[in-house]
C-alpha cells in the first residue's frame, strides 16, 4: 500500500498544521480502536444534546424535579418511561441523558483547565530552567503523589458542599503535573532550536518567546493529553457524586448511582443500577481508545510498520 504522501506534495504552501492533520487523519482512519472510540463518543455527544428534549416534551421528564402524577416511587420500564423511574418518580432516561451532558461538561472543562495550567507551567519551567524549573517540578511531584479524590473529599469537609465548578477547578488543579512534565520536555528540546535564538537576538521578551514561539509547537502534544485528562476528570466527579459529595443540584451518572445505592434499590432495580454504570464505563473506554489511536498518530514508532532491512 503506497503511503498517502501525495496529498502533501500537491500544496507546498499549506500550513504545516493542515498537512500534518491530514496525514494524521489517514492514519487514524485505519485504526480500529480509534474508530470505535470515536463512534461511541459521538453517540454520547448525541445523548448529551438530546438531554434537552425530554423536559421540553413535558415537565414530568425533568431529571431533577420531574414528577409523574401517576408514579411516585421506583418502577420498571414502561412505555412512558423507557428506563423506568427512580425512587422519587423521576424519569431515569432523562437523568441518563442529562448525565451525558454533565460528563462532557465536567470532562472537557477540567481537561481544558488542566491543559492550560500544565502547558503554561511546563513551558515556563522548561524555558526558565534552573531554580524556577526545580521549584515547579518539585511542586508537580508532590501533587502527583496526592490522590485527587481524597483531597477533594477533605476540601469539602472544610468548605462544605462544593458546587460543580469548584469540583472541576480542583480536579484541574491536581491534574496539571502530568501534562507539565511532557510539555517541559518538549520545551527543553525546542529551546535549543535556532528560531528561538533568533527571537532572543531580536530582543523578544521571555513572555513573548514562550507564548508566541514555543506554544504553537507544543500544543499538538497537549491536545493528545487532553483525551486522557477528560476520562480521569469524569471518573473523579462520578466517584465524588457516588460518595455523596457531588453538587446536589446536578444530575450526573455518579449521582444516579448514589441514589440507587443509598435508597436501597440496588438489588431490585437493574434498570436503574445498570445504565449509569455502563455509561461511565463506556465513555471512559471510548476516550481511552481515542487516546491510544491518537498516540499512534503522533508517535510514528507505534504504527504497525513492517520491518525493512
Amino acid at each position: 500500500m503506497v503511503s498517502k504522501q501525495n496529498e502533501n506534495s500537491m500544496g507546498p504552501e499549506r500550513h504545516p498544521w493542515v498537512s500534518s492533520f491530514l496525514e494524521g487523519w489517514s492514519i487514524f482512519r485505519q485504526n480500529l480502536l480509534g474508530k470505535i472510540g470515536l463512534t461511541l463518543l459521538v453517540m454520547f455527544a448525541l445523548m448529551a444534546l438530546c438531554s434537552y428534549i425530554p423536559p421540553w416534551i413535558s415537565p414530568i421528564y425533568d431529571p431533577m424535579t420531574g414528577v409523574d402524577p401517576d408514579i411516585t416511587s421506583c418502577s420498571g420500564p414502561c412505555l412512558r418511561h423507557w428506563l423506568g423511574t427512580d425512587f422519587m418518580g423521576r424519569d431515569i432516561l432523562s437523568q441518563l441523558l442529562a448525565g451525558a451532558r454533565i460528563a462532557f461538561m465536567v470532562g472537557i472543562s477540567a481537561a481544558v483547565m488542566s491543559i492550560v495550567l500544565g502547558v503554561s507551567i511546563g513551558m515556563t519551567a522548561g524555558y526558565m530552567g534552573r531554580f524556577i524549573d526545580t521549584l515547579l517540578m518539585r511542586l508537580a511531584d508532590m501533587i502527583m503523589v496526592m490522590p485527587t479524590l481524597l483531597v477533594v473529599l477533605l476540601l469539602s469537609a472544610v468548605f462544605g458542599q462544593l458546587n460543580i465548578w469548584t469540583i472541576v477547578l480542583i480536579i484541574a488543579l491536581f491534574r496539571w503535573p502530568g501534562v507539565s512534565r511532557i510539555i517541559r520536555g518538549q520545551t527543553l528540546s525546542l529551546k535549543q532550536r535556532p528560531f528561538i535564538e533568533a527571537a532572543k537576538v531580536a530582543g523578544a521578551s521571555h513572555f513573548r518567546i514562550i507564548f508566541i514561539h514555543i506554544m504553537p509547537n507544543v500544543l499538538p502534544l497537549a491536545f493528545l493529553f487532553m483525551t486522557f485528562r477528560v476520562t480521569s476528570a469524569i471518573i473523579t466527579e462520578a466517584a465524588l457524586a457516588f460518595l455523596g459529595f457531588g453538587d446536589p443540584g446536578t444530575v450526573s451518572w455518579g449521582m444516579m448511582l448514589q441514589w440507587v445505592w443509598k435508597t436501597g434499590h440496588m438489588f431490585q432495580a437493574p434498570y436503574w443500577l445498570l445504565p449509569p454504570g455502563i455509561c461511565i464505563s463506556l465513555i471512559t473506554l471510548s476516550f481511552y481508545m481515542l487516546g491510544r489511536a491518537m498516540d499512534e498518530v503522533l508517535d510514528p514508532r507505534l504504527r504497525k510498520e513492517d520491518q525493512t532491512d
Partner: protein
Amino acid sequence: MELRKYITKRIIQIIIIFFVILTVLFLLFRLAPGDPVSMMVDPDMTQEDAEMLIVQLGLEQPLGMQYLIYLKNFFTGHFGFSFHYGDPVVDIIWDRLPNTVLLFTTSIILSALVGVFLGKIASWHKGKKVDSIMTIGALVTHTVFLPWLALILIWIFAYKFGWFPINGMISEEVWLDPEAGFISRALDVMYHMVLPLSTLFLIHFGAYLLIMRSSMLETLKEDYILTARAKGLEEKVIRDHHAAPNAALPVVTSVGLSLAFSINGGALTETVFTWPGIGRELVSSVSQNDYPLAQACFLMIAGVVLISNLVVDVLYAYLDPRIRY
C-alpha cells in the same frame, strides 16, 4: 554503595513531602471559614474537657506557636478526639490501618503478578485469538467504573447467589467465639475479602497486562534477544529468562506511578463493602464533619502512599542492576 545513597535520598524526599502535606493541612484547617475551635473540639464535650483540649492543641495561641504545638502533637501522637466515636483519633487510626494495608497490598501484588504473567503470554501470541481476548478483556475491565463494579459483584455474588457476605470484614460469630483459633479467624477474613479484592484486582490488572504486553514486544526487538537466539536457546527460555525480566521493569515503574489512583480505588472499595479501613473512615468522617478524624485519616493515607512509593522505588532499584551498581 550506590543503592544506599539512592534509598537515603528517597527517604529524605518523602519526609520532606510529608511535612509539606502536614503543613498544608495545618493551614487549611486553621484558615478555613469558620471557627477553628469548632473544627477541633467536639461541641458535645464538657466545658472543662473542651478547655483542656483547647490548651493542648494551642488554639488560643498565635499561628506560629500553634504550628509548633501542632508538630509536637503529631510526634507524640495527639490528634485530638473523634467527634463521632469519642475515642482518641490515634486509636481509631491504628485500629483501621492494618485492614487497609491488608486489602491494598494484596490487591496490588496480585494484580501486578497476574498482569505481568498474562501480559507476557499475550505478547507471545500476538495477533492470535488469545492475545485479542486478553487485550480486550484488559481494556474493558480497566475502564469499568469501580464503585459500580463493586455494586454489580455484590448484587450477583452476594445477593443473588449468596456465595459471599454482602459487606464487612468479619463475622461476629467467629470472632466473638472464644474457641475460634487463628486459622478460622484468618479464613473468615479471607472469606470476606474475596469480593473487595476481586473488585480491586479486576480494575487494576488490565493496566499491568497492557503495559507488560507492549513492553515485551519492545524487548523482543532488542539485540540481546537476537544474541540469545543465536546462542541456540529455546524460545521459551528466551522469553522467560531473557525478555521477561527486562520487560517487567516498566511495569514496576507504572505500579509506582499509579499508586494514588489505586488508593482512590481502595477508599471507594472499602466504602462500598463497608470494609473497616482508613479509606472508609475518611469518607464517613468527612460526611459526619468529624474534623479531627478526617484530618488524621488523610494524613495516614498520604503516608501510606508515600511509603508505597518508596517500596516500589527500592524494588525497582533492586531489580535493575543498572541502578544498583
